[in-house]
């Protein structure tokens, strides 16, 4: 075993142990804010784990979604939920047998899974070679993009539909009488000057990075989803700094943005029936431009949907938040 391999093994060991320790700490820590910060760190560590496993696409997504957007949502939630009263803490202490049971169950499942995974057939049956064989037919060079946009395009299409549905579901929670109000979770009342500066300086770089991520997606790891999530995060930053007004659910433009991606995808897919003989098949010669167009609008739709969810809901009329 050479030095590089030993170093790699050591890295893996450190990573694995720290992910486990951090996860346990997040579950056990009583302070909500600390748990959220721990969650952010954990997201980044898990992204590194994916890198070590040779899955840079997953690593990117995990870093942006798991580390970034979800943390932002959790931060917002933990700030909005009133602090736990003494009564709740007492009730929690009463429920420790339930918690113990849940922990035991989870441990049993984890150990069982570990055993099963260790016994998986070696070498693992995989479609990687089949994907590689068929790759030229899709005219993209990144096998992950080929799977997402050609072989299993229907799943990608429906995942973007799920995103639209998630937004509808989220908006269905808007308080009565506040449908035409702007979302009110993100803007700070008095953003620090440094934050405002950051909000002005970062967006151009962020947008550039997102476009880059999107563009290389056809050949290298990256793609519309990661790029869209990055755009959403930048939008959230601008909103937090108070540099732009959040949208209202009743406005047409954000909805149009969200729906555009899946609609264009459907249109190209249906056109495939006549032009290429199959639903979601691309006419030969036009594969790459069509995939690029779809990915571009999908990126905007992903960014809009995630950004609108991050922006939150308008406050209920007459609530404490609204008077503030």
């Amino acid at each position, binding site marked *: 075993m050479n030095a590089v391999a030993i170093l790699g093994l050591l890295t893996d060991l450190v990573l694995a142990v720290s992910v486990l320790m951090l996860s346990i700490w997040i579950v056990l820590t009583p302070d909500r804010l600390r748990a959220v910060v721990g969650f952010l760190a954990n997201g980044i560590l898990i992204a590194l784990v994916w890198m070590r496993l040779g899955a840079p696409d997953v690593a990117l997504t995990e870093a942006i979604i798991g580390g970034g957007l979800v943390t932002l949502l959790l931060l917002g939630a933990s700030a909005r939920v009133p602090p736990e009263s003494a009564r709740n803490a007492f009730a929690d202490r009463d429920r420790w047998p339930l918690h113990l049971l849940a922990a035991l169950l989870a441990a049993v499942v984890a150990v069982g899974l570990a055993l099963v995974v260790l016994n998986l057939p070696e070498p693992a049956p995989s479609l990687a070679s089949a994907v590689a064989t068929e790759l030229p037919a899709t005219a993209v060079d990144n096998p992950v993009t080929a799977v997402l946009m050609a072989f299993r395009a229907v799943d990608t299409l429906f995942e973007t539909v799920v995103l639209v549905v998630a937004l509808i579901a989220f908006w*269905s929670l808007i308080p009565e009488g506040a449908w035409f109000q702007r979302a009110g979770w993100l803007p700070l009342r008095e953003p620090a000057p440094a934050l405002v500066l950051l909000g002005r300086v970062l967006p151009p770089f962020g947008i550039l990075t997102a476009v880059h991520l999107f563009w290389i997606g056809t050949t290298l790891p990256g793609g519309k989803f990661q790029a869209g999530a990055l755009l959403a995060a930048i939008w959230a930053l601008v909103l937090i700094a108070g540099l732009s007004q959040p949208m209202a659910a009743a406005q047409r433009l954000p909805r149009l943005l969200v729906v555009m991606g899946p609609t264009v995808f459907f249109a190209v897919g249906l056109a495939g029936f006549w032009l290429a003989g199959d639903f979601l098949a691309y006419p030969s010669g036009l594969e790459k431009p069509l995939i690029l167009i779809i990915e571009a609008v999908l990126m905007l739709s992903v960014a809009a949907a995630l950004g609108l969810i991050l922006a939150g809901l308008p406050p209920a009329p007459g609530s404490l938040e609204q008077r503030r």
Partner: protein
Amino acid sequence: MTPLLIENGDLLAGLGVWSDELLVSLLVLPVLAMLLGFVLGGRAAERITLLTLPLGLALAIAVAVLMLHQGTPLSYDIGGWEPPLGVALRVDGLSALLLLTTALVITGVGLYACADFATSADVKEARAPLAFWTLLLGLWAALNAVFIGQDLFNLYVAIELLTFTAVPLVCLKGSAETLQAALRYLLFALLGSVLYLLGAALLYGAYGTLDIGQLAAAMGSSAEPAAIAAVVLMTAGLLAKTALVPLHLWLPPAHAGAPAAASAVLSALVVKGSFYLVFRLWIDLMPLAYTQQIAQGLATLGAVAILLGGIMAIRQARLKMLIAYSTLAQLGYLFLIFPLLVSPVMVPALADGSTPAAWTGGILQLVSHAFAKASMFMGAGLIMIALGHDRIADLGGLGRLLPITLVAFALSGLSLMGLPPSGGFAAKWLLLRAAIETGQWWWMLVILLGGVLTGVYLYRVLVSASFGGAGAVVEAGPTSDRQSASVPELAPEALPELASAPSPEPASAPSPRSSSERPGQTGQAQSVQGQPRLQRPVARSRELIVLTLALIAIALGMVPLTSFEILQIGRGGEAMAMLEPLAEPVGLSAVELPPSGLTPVPSVAGSLVAEMEPLPGVAGSLPSAAEPLP
């Protein structure tokens, strides 16, 4: 495309050319309508949905007719990529029936919901209508995707879509209780999704494909340990979504708290979607020997659900809670299919492609419950509007206010109880027969006991609605009044089974209690003439929708059972062929067979057939009478 093209002049053959487009449209039509409705918003969403209803229904009918005509399942590889690389869609007899059921129920619900979810004239757009109409379309697409999916990851996307459309429907009212119910539902459903996804990933890791047919072929007659773990995890997740005991805690508050139209869809269809996947995992994917081992366990949970749901339903004070617990119980019956279907006695029948009673009975239970429960929940919604409450004890006088709804309720009740002539009767009777044929008498007891419990809780409602309440304040007056009214007679007529029960007791019991419990306003509202006042009028057309769905549930019992042979399309061949080597049980089964019950068609069943003649065609559909399908 198919040899059928050659049959010139035939409309169906013409349809055959479009088979691929039809399959894809099942997914595309509702989704595109949803996206368009979301962008245009408000009233447009409602109009687009109402326009989509007949189109979607026509599509489901066209697919079913085409499949029936061809006699073989329709399938399509999306994008021209064959599995394992690509994703396939497939419609067999069972999925065609489920697609049709979904389309019919959603059409009924959509027409019914116009009155509840209209955008009022003074605003441009309102939250609840926009959410309801778009989510209804999304839910339809999700259900279609679940029923025609053939790829485990594609099915994961479908059940995710189903979850995200179903959960917000629970809390459309926006009250704290419904939000809590929705959140609980979400947690259970998300746990289910995670477990399902984990299982799907494990299966891919073990076999390198996600296509159900290819996985089954790769397994042959023995599965890898990883596959067993995967399917068990997926089953646990799907059971959480189906609300099988002990993972049922979320269902009653969620289904009872949702608006009536939403409750109807949730109870009639959404829980069936995840059940269908459990069914596919154990019948289509796993080798038979493993299913035989788990079947008794699944059915035991189902039996507990039947009994627990029944007992809890009897104890409820509110109509919608009662109906929700009834769903819990009726879902339990579906899990009885497993031991009855894979019992070693039935295996030879399965292998030669005939239709076993448990199979037809189980599917009939699923479908007739869908119609009956949709009708019941929507009826409860009308009662809620008309009376302003749904307290069972105070339903008196309903027969005068909403006679059609009460009749529909009684008819749906017939089907749920399993009394002839209804879909529920045929279903439960077939399950009973299967229990006898396979010598598993204990499931027979459960089915019968469940029927009695169902009878008791529905009887409570019908008695209260027909006789209760009215006598509470003015005891003498309304009694004669009541005799002259035509509707109250319906209840005893509809419940011949319970005619021997001491009827005066339950009839008078609610009255004193309700009068003592009912302080202030409610008492006043009812006091003037000793009968409840109509709080708000209910459109006759809405009552008729409720009645129509109930009538479909009844009519299912009158369909000759031989026509359910279509359920066998796409199952006689490849799916069941691999069962053949297992026809001789090798001691793997957990089923203990009494020596007398070993013959496929025991005499007990024969005599039952002779006695229960009202069901035409039943006798002809015994497993031995296989109808060769093309």
